């Protein structure tokens, strides 16, 4: 999706507010973060789906709202889609119907911390998928743009880079969000020359690396 979230290389956003060094500025931001984390346990969305829901926030809102408010807007979308909350409840802040507690049990105090500490390994055994590309090989980033969630930024499409490393076999975020299952495949770190990306305004020798799933790449 060639959405507003795909910020790399866009111009006109002005200087960086270096002084905005806080993580949470307000109590509601702290609460919003916690809500999104906790809801992921009792409701059917994962990190990739939540990320895509943020991408689907209307562009004018995406730019205007606080980062954590966009997270909440995304969670509202996902909860509505799942039929767990409806708009009338969001409008007046009160519960209008119950949900099935068995299939939507809340995460417990210790359970959430333990699981957060454990993390979620998204890799598959290396030998489950053969690698199409080798380190050192030149690759072209596909022009084709997925209509839904994708993790190849617009500024890399159609550009040629070189494989720096094979990071192993990972579940494929595009496929997960599209409902096609994990579609495990190799993910490579690819290096691009800054001048190839940005033309002569970039300095010779400067470069950029990105991790790209195999489906995004073609032999150069």
């Amino acid at each position, binding site marked *: 999706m060639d959405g507003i979230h795909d910020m*790399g290389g866009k111009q006109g956003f002005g200087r960086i507010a270096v002084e905005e060094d806080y993580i949470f500025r307000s109590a509601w931001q702290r609460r919003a973060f916690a809500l999104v984390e906790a809801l992921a346990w009792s409701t059917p969305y994962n990190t990739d789906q939540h990320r895509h829901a943020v991408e689907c926030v209307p562009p004018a809102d995406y730019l205007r709202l606080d980062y954590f408010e966009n997270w909440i807007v995304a969670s509202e979308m996902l909860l509505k889609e799942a039929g767990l909350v409806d708009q009338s409840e969001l409008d007046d802040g009160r519960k209008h119907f119950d949900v099935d507690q068995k299939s939507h049990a809340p995460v417990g105090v210790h359970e959430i911390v333990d699981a957060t500490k454990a993390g979620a390994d998204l890799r598959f055994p290396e030998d489950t998928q053969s690698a199409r590309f080798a380190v050192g090989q030149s690759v072209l980033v596909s022009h084709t743009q997925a209509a839904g969630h994708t993790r190849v930024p617009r500024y890399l499409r159609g550009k040629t880079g070189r494989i720096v490393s094979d990071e192993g076999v990972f579940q494929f975020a595009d496929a997960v969000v599209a409902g096609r299952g994990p579609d495990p495949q190799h993910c490579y770190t690819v290096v691009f020359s800054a001048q190839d990306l940005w033309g002569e305004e970039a300095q010779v020798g400067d470069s950029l690396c990105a991790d790209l799933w195999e489906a995004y790449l073609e032999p150069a």
Partner: protein
Amino acid sequence: MSKQSKGSDKGHTDGHGHEHDPLEEGAALRVRALEEIVVAKGLVDPEALDSIVEYYERETGPRNGAAVVARAWSDPEFKNWLLQDGTAAINSMGFRGVQGEHIRVIENTDETHNVVVCTLCSCYPWPVLGLAPAWYKSPAYRSRVVREPRVVLEEFGFELPRGTQVRVWDSTAEVRYLILPVRPANTGDLSVEELAQLVTRNGMIGTAAV
């Protein structure tokens, strides 16, 4: 921006006085409404909300990353392991978890300075750096650092040594990046703990030297 939109958005004061910002108040109300609904429905345990934020605030943060960096500066064998298999070396120090499942450590050198961004959202290595600061998630940082990293580094007050190349790392997939800064000169007699005091969060993102 506050001047630009003054006529139509009087309460917004561009980063200052946010306590009375109607946008901010609206967001607070919205979050509270959602919390009340999902708690009433039993989808969320309010104590779990407290515990998850407390976990991040107490057990993650740049002090973790600084300990990793200081140890790498002091212990060549650990440094090798860290650069070969960042996740395992970092796990061995007890730092692990969500958004730290796959960490790659990139070493700054006199030849190449590295800087990390997530242009598509806000990917960041939580176990070693904590949650991301606001500027890291801003459109300005995300849009500009890939295109004009040298100008961005200047805005952070970081003077790039002459002849140093810049490499930007865009966190587009599942690997999260931690920068290993160049060890400052004249720190040969510092302990690991003293070295860790020198390391800043921005140094481990790449927007500062150390």
